[in-house]
């Protein structure tokens, strides 16, 4: 057993790992916000009176949920240019993450909308609110409160899955790890440290979301 673990390279690598982590956080922040907004639209559209809209959204959700994220990413980054759509790696990553995330959260938001009692909507309409006001002010806040834990989990899962976008050369945490291990020849130590960073990120992200959910949602439902 001649191998001795060596973490001597770490002091020089801290800034690279930090900038990679910052990119990972940026990617998940943008795609989580975009994904949730889109999935509210998607869930509402899935309950619309237009059959074609309902069917289109259902098809999109099934297509995304039954194919790997890696293949979706490759299709967007390598496949779309043959249709003349050439995307920057970061843009392609955000697009793929948002599309993936939206398919899952559309189902979650939909379940939340269904969980709000019908009487709430009827009461609000009886008070003279317009349908759009009823949706935004009455139904949506209550639905968000119900689904908040599920949304939190989905965002954390997407953050972990974003490790894959290193494959199209987005300079996030995994990509920096790949570069580092190629330079130091300390593959195990590098990936070990970066795995710990991911673990810290997922614990931190979960805490942050739960704390902000408690703060904004419990008081926010009025």
């Amino acid at each position: 057993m001649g191998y001795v673990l060596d973490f001597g390279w770490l002091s020089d690598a801290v800034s690279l790992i930090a900038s990679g982590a910052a990119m990972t956080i940026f990617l998940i922040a943008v795609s989580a916000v975009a994904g949730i907004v889109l999935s509210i639209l998607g869930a509402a559209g899935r309950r619309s009176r237009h059959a074609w809209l309902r069917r289109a959204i259902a098809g999109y959700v099934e297509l995304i949920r039954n194919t790997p994220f890696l293949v979706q990413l490759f299709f967007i980054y390598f496949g779309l240019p043959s249709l003349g759509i050439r995307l920057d790696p970061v843009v392609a990553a955000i697009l793929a993450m948002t599309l993936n995330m939206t398919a899952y959260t559309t189902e979650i938001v939909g379940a939340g909308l269904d969980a709000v009692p019908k009487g709430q909507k009827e009461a609000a309409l009886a008070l003279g609110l317009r349908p759009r006001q009823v949706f935004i002010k009455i139904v949506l806040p209550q639905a968000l409160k119900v689904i908040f834990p599920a949304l939190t989990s989905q965002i954390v899962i997407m953050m972990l899955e974003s490790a894959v976008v290193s494959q199209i050369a987005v300079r996030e945490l995994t990509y920096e790890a790949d570069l580092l291990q190629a330079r130091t020849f300390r593959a195990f130590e590098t990936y070990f440290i970066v795995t710990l960073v991911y673990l810290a990120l997922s614990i931190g992200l979960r805490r942050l979301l739960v704390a902000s959910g408690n703060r904004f949602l419990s008081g926010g439902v009025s």
Partner: protein
Amino acid sequence: MIEFTLWDIVRNLLLAARWTILLSAVAFAGGTIVGLLILFMRISKRRWVQRFAEYYIGLFQGTPLLMQLFLLFFGLPLLGLRIEPWTAAVLGLTLCASAFLAEIWRGGVQAVPLGQWDAGSSLGLHYLKQLRLIILPQAFAMTRAPTVGFLVQLIKSTALTSIIGFEELVRTSNAINNATFEPFKVYGFVALIYFALCFPLTRYAKMLELRALKH
């Protein structure tokens, strides 16, 4: 320069899909065995055993699968084990699946009313027999839908093993794409193959879920 017809592309992809299916099956079987062990630890009465299983599950659910694969692929040779992509892929997916399956089944075990345990011990059954004859059958029946749902997730996860060099569907498609320069077509077909594998299982899980609601 070799010419690839459409049929060549599809045929090679379908041949590679066999490895995706095999890897999924082996990892699911392995994940079931290890997952049962983790489940027993998770519901054990000893605090420290319970704690260990909790951390095990948290570790695998809180880190990217890609990192787990890298750590095995680069870590095990340091222990003097020769490791190939196939070994690392099977081992990584098995460990990851065991954590997720244990957590799913734990939910089932906890949903079984406590009276069932009491009834078991009043019949004079010891702990393992209570588990095997009374608790686990009910817990598995309740968690059939999420278990099938996880199998879908596992099939999709096998795509990541292409990155550590295992020749499954995605890695083969990368090679074909490099030869044909038709990424739109190639990755489109790959997506269709995954869809054909996963969609029936998703429907089956949905059906199980609806049936469970009716009871």
